[in-house]
């Protein structure tokens, strides 16, 4: 997204910081609407099946969910630190904090993996015989749980790929103090991932 107009012929490269940021913000807006569709489905079924949702949420592991929230919030902090460090010209520090962000993102996925595995072990996955025996609302709850945290997890993976690519570009000097908009845009994306999770936590874990 942080693409800039390439020079044709002999013209100097056209770099538009504001433009790159504008494009990124609009893209994030589309991401919000993508999740927005799911939040809409959630609110409809929560209204229809309030009691079932309440019961189903009781089976989720609150300590793990809260731990993951702290993991992601901390990764957002290290992300900001990385951008600030690069703006100040401290490349090494920028790379270190970026490394921490990647580590925390990985940790989030590991914790999520154990959570999902436990649910699947108990037969709580979409279309499972166990879920079919439960009231319809609980089935929909777990459907939403897996789809929404799954889509969020997919965004975490995409974010990790994005941040890794940019870490290499910081290392090679393509992204530097004078041209850091790619890192900044990747940071914006990462905060969105964080923000979505902040809504997922209360909607799934804390409604019991």
């Amino acid at each position, binding site marked *: 997204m942080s693409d800039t107009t390439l020079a044709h012929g002999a013209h100097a490269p056209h770099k*538009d910081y504001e433009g790159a940021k504008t*494009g990124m913000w609009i893209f994030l807006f589309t991401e919000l609407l993508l999740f927005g569709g799911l939040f809409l489905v959630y609110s409809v079924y929560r209204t229809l099946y309030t009691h079932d949702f309440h019961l189903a949420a009781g089976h989720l592991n609150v300590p793990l969910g809260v731990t993951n929230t702290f993991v992601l919030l901390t990764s957002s902090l290290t992300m900001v630190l990385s951008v600030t460090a690069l703006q100040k010209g401290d490349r090494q520090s920028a790379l270190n904090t970026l490394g921490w962000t990647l580590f925390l993102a990985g940790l989030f996925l590991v914790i999520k993996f154990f959570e999902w595995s436990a649910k699947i072990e108990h037969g709580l996955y979409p279309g499972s015989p166990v879920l079919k025996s439960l009231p319809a609302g609980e089935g929909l709850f777990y459907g939403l749980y897996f789809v929404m945290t799954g889509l969020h997890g997919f965004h975490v993976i995409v974010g990790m790929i994005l941040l890794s690519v940019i870490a290499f570009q910081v290392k090679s000097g393509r992204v530097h103090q004078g041209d850091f908009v790619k890192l900044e845009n990747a940071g914006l994306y990462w905060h969105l991932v964080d923000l979505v999770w902040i809504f997922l936590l209360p909607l799934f874990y804390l409604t019991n």
Partner: protein
Amino acid sequence: MTDKASGATPPRGFYGPEGGGGGLLSWVFSTDHKRVGLLYLYSLLSFFAIGAILGLTMRAELLMPGQQLVSPRVYNSLFTLHGVIMIFLFIVPGIPAIMGNFMLPLQIGAEDVAFPRLNLASWWVYMVGAFLAVTSLFSGGGAPDTGWTFYAPYSIRTNSNVSLAVLAAFILGFSSVLTGINFITTIHRMRAKGMGFFRMPLFVWSLYATSWIQVIATPVVGITLVLVVLERLLGIGFFDPAAGGDPILYQHLFWIYSHPAVYIMILPAMGVISEILPTFSRRTIFGYKAIAMSSMAIAGVGYLVWGHHMFTTGMSDTSRVVFSLMTFLVAIPTGIKIFNWVATLYRGSISLESPMLYAMAFIFLFSIGGLTGLVNGALSTDIHVHDTYFVVGHFHYVMFGGTGIALFAALHYWLPKISGRMVNEKKAKRAFWLVVIGFNLLYFPMLVLGIMGMPRRYHDYLPIFQTPHVISTIGSWVIATGLVLMFWNLWSSARRGALAGNNPWGGTTLEWQTTSPPPTLNFDAPVTVTAGPYERGEGRTA
């Protein structure tokens, strides 16, 4: 490309070595907005041809009651594919992807769009989606047979290859979002010096409004289509009544996008008309700000009317009244545009070249489409015409009579700029009359059939419906002949037509200031704008 008779050739412009030359790779990997626009042109027109052949096959089947050519099952696939290809592959990307890409940077005096590589990427994403859509016809459980709307629960139960088709639609939506982001950023950041928002050509305004709808509405259908795939693969149950899900929720989510999508289709068409009318009536546009703002109003109100697709499928009366009211409100900005266009013609020095003829046909056909839309938007009459041929007729008057005809107008208007050569007017006018007469023969009987009670999407019909069906099928042959002549004429004119020069029509917007075809960087010197887009007279640009 040379004119043997006169020996004169237009400048090579962006077709030349500076723009990458003529090799295939230099086209499919070009980040030049003009080349990307032409890539879209050829891709979209190819799919338009396929969609048209599917449509002609359906019309041939409907010539007589009973089974002629295809079985009911194949007929279901035909109308599904005709819809999917025409909507997702042709008319949604349509004018923005072709003409927007080519003309937007030229009209605002920029060298390119804001993100040229992203622009190229969106074409590749489009091609991947198109490839998957075509693959879905020949693989898995056979071509989808759900209709282009993929309504649940049938779409989650049928064995046909719905998953792949839906995935294709999702990917095409992604391409559309990328184009939207690119255009919004371009319009905000790349305007020439002196061009404030209210000095932008109206085509640019319409692209701006369109891009916002693309950005706001497409993600919702994107996630909905993903849910259909997950529903089929994993059985999450969101739209399956057996699992406690609600199929009507699917319809809401689908139309939250797909109704604004019709404004994605029509707004750029209105933009094209707003360019052509002042040029061919040698006047400034009447009510510039009203037209610009009405585009934004249509985009805004159009987002809140999706429920009118569902008047008969289960909604509270309150919702139905509100959605009906909002639907009627859309008619106001649309009416503002039509009145301003007609006022532009008043006391103008009108010349009826082919682009102007198509623009006139647009106003006529689109007005029929718009007024029949109100019949669908009113609660009582909608009960009678819902899911009948009336809806099919209305939709084709708006989409084909509106957007399709406007694209043809744009092709005739801007061909001199794109190719450097003029359209053969005599042949263009012949093709025009065949297209317009064929169009009305083809679609007007559908309105009549709908009022008579003929349901849509049926392979067979009762003998009382035969006369309108025969007229309609004959119309399909007339318009097909017209379209072949039109495209043949455009193609041969682009190769052998008379030289156009920079400004053959006397247009006032910036694209006419540069050479035809434009050089790779569009303008030889930076552009400064000192007047509104349609003001005539000396020294309006420097």
